[in-house]
Every structure is written in C-alpha cells, then in structure tokens.
C-alpha cells in the first residue's frame, strides 16, 4: 500500500486530499494530550486565555507514555481510546487543529467538526507501544508536569505510522472496514 509522507504543521490543502484507509507517515512535531490535559485546554479556551501551544496546523496525539528509562527519549507510547476526548475535540479543531491521533470511534460531533473545520482523525495501532516509540526522536514536557503521564509533551517524530480513519468528507474507516468483513 502506498504511504503518504506528511510534515507538520499541516495545511488545509494537505488534509483535504486525505481519504480513509490511506497510510500516512507523519514527520515533525506532535503534541500529546489526553483526558486531564484536554479538560484544562478547553477550560482555558472558555476563559479566553492563551493555550500552552497554538493548535493551528498542529496534530494532537492522544497518549500517556510510560516514563523514559535512563538514556531513552521516551517510554512505550501507543494511542489511547479517542472517544474520551470527544467532548473537547471540536473546540480544538475550531481553533485550527488539523489532526488528532488515537484509536477507536469518534462521535458524530467530532466527525461534523472534521468536515466543518477541515480536519482528519488518524488511528495508530493500539498496543504497539514499544514499536511506535521507535519513531519518536525527542520528547519534552511543555505543560502540566503535575499530570505525570498526562502532561502535554512536545514530540518530534520521524515516519510515525498512522492510518486515516475519518476524513474531511465524512468517511469512516471503521464503518467501511467492518462492512466488508462482516458475515452476511
């Protein structure tokens, strides 16, 4: 299968071309965030305050890595289940976030936000955390160190493998994939 190589920050043009099922190798910067960090980010948006990073053109990776062993950049680093971030995601896409990476289905509200704000949702392979960590070249905590594994990290990645699950035209790879293989 052909793989598309993309470097962040992502533009509308880059995102609009993506279709469900395409494999993408991401390069550049990703920001990590999961439940607790998302709650804080959205609280800041509601208060009209500045976020710890500008989401415009960026990609958020839903992950809480294990601590780095001495001499390592990061610990194991696979995706967490995305639906828990559904209540927060549309507001971040509205601010220009171009993609999120996780695993599992998104809500109709998120899928609508992807169409409206030109965004995509990628899946990484859940549970392949030791392997995924190999594509992470550097990591530093940029916000909320008190949250431990849930702190926001800035990751620099090389050929980080993901697949397009939801695209800008409302496609859903999970729906399509299951349809093909479900016994009639």
């Amino acid at each position, binding site marked *: 299968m052909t793989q598309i190589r993309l470097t962040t920050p992502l533009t509308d043009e880059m995102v609009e071309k993506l279709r469900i099922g395409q494999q993408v190798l991401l390069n550049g910067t990703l920001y990590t965030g999961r439940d607790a960090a998302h709650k804080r980010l959205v609280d800041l948006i509601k208060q009209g305050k500045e976020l710890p990073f500008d989401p415009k053109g960026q990609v958020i990776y839903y992950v809480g890595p294990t601590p780095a062993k001495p001499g390592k950049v990061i610990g*194991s680093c696979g995706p967490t289940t995305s639906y828990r971030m559904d209540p927060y995601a549309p507001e971040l896409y509205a601010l220009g976030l171009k993609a999120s990476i996780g695993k599992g289905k998104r809500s109709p509200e998120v899928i609508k936000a992807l169409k409206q704000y030109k965004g995509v949702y990628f899946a990484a392979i859940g*549970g392949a955390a030791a392997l995924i960590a190999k594509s992470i070249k550097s990591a530093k905590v940029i916000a909320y160190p008190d949250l431990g594994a849930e702190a926001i990290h800035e990751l620099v990645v090389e050929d980080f493998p993901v697949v397009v699950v939801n695209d800008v035209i409302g496609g859903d790879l999970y729906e399509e994939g299951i349809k093909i293989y479900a016994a009639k």
Partner: protein
Amino acid sequence: MFNNIQGLGNKHKVAGVTGRIEFTVINKISIMVRILLFIFWGIESNITAKGGTTIKTINTSVITEAVKKMCQDANFNLGNDVMEAFKKYYESEVSLTGKEILQILIKNAEIAREEQAPMCQDTGFAVVFVELGQDVRIEGGDFYEAINEGVRQGYTEGYLRKSIVSHPLERKNTGDNTPAVIHTKIVPGKNLRIIVAPKGGGSENMSAIKMLKPADGVEGVKKFVVDTIKAAGPNPCPPVVVGVGIGGTYEKAALLSKEALLRELGEKSKYPDIAKLEEELLEEINKTGVGPQGLGGKTTALAVHIEIYGAHIASLPVAVNLNCHAARHKEVVL
C-alpha cells in the same frame, strides 16, 4: 485444644484403676472407652503435631518481592500463548491490513521482550488474585500492604506508567499505581499462589454486565456477548480475549468474567456444554467483521473463556470482561 484432651485423659486414668479392682461390666466399658479414647487421643495428637509442624510461614517481604517482579514481567514479556495465537490468526486472517496489524503486534511483543520495555503504554491497574492456603501463616506485617508495596516498587523501578487516581471524582494520581485490586480466596493446603494481571483501561471500559431472565437462556447469553463486542468495535484494541462470567450474583458474575481471563489462551472450560459455547461464541464474534484494531477482518477475538457458577432461580447474570491483545498475567506459588 491439646491441653483439654490431656485433662480428659487424666480423669479417665482414675476410672481405669478402679476397674482393675472390681472388674465389673461398667469397668469393661470403661476400659473400652479408655482404649477408644487412647486411639482418638493419638489421632488427635497426631493432627495437632502434624498441623503444628506443617503450617508454613511466609514473610511479607517475600510477597512484596514476588509482586514487584510479576508487575514488570507481565508488562515486558507477553505470554507464549498470546504470541502463538497471533501467529495462528495471521495465517487465517483474510484482510491484508489485518494481517499487517497482527505482524506489527508480534514485532511489538518481540521488541518489548528484548528491551524489557512495556508492550503497551497502559501498564494497567494491578489486579492481583491470591489463593491463600489455610495452612499458611503470614508474618512481617499487613498482607495487603505487602502486595501494594510490591506494586509500588514494581511500577516505580520498572518505569511503568502510573495510571491510578486515588479518588474517582477528584482524580489525583497516586503516583505509584496503588492501590492494587486484590481478590483473595482461602484454599486447602500450604501454598500461597499469587497472580498479577495488569489490566488496561481501554478494554476494561468496554466491558459490560447484564441481568438476563432465565427464559433468555443460552441464546440470550450469546446475543449479549456478541452485542458487547460489536458495540466496543475498535475501542478495546482487538483482537481481544473475551472473559465471560455466567451465573452467581451481580458481583460474582463480574468476578468470574475476570477470572476467565486468567486462563491460558484457548484452554477450554471443563464443562463440555460450556466448552462448546466458548467455541460457538468465538466463531460468531469472528464473523462480526470488526477485525484487528477494528479496521475490518476475521480476527476480532483470540479466545473466549467462560466461567460459570450456580444462579438464583430468578436470575441469569452475564458479565463480559474484555481484554485487549496485551493479555498479561504472571503467577507464582510460594
């Protein structure tokens, strides 16, 4: 207890001396009673003596060390049963993406093993099953604290993720992955068996329980299990291991479903009808099309394990506990 019997014996000896002088029927009985008591006495002493010498003492420091090691071992070294299942389903999977994912999971487990790194970043809630032999005595402190200390050391020293908050609503991380969830059973014998099964949140969140009507029968059970898998879709990181508990009460069914996950993959239920149900359910689940990572395919579950228990005449509880493909558990017998 021994002292009491000794006391009884002394009284009896007095009766016996009288019997030798008069030799009446009563005294004959008295001698027989004495003989019987001697035999009984002997057995009783033996039990006491035997019981006294066979009580095994285990220090809590040994328990802490064992739990610590198992927390790390379980997270670094995926069981061969799961690896074999990946390979088997790689052969039978029809989706190319599905095959690719299974291959990646094999590679991931190999890297984790080589580097002694966690196979998944969710290193889990430390679920600990204890079978405590009734002839074991624990010394050196609080038994549960010894287990929690093992979890604390295992997760901290092993660079495992601390995923536990102390209060479910306040949600402040405890910082050391405690408290563990500990299930204890008292069993005959003098062994202490400890199983550590780190459980990921993603698959735990997709688990479900339902109080069915007895009239729903086996078809109702099957429908609930398959519906749970379909609703979970990609979220629990398929291919999953499906633990099912049928019977008991509300909480018993849930516990059975978790215990079912501890079985070696593919090991069948000892009840032929339940073993058949396990097979049928696995087949049905793998027809849903969910597939590896929910991206479509034939490998949705690696195994279905069912545990059963007696049920109330009014109830048919069914619990489904899903485990992601990182089906981790290690055990030790002390």
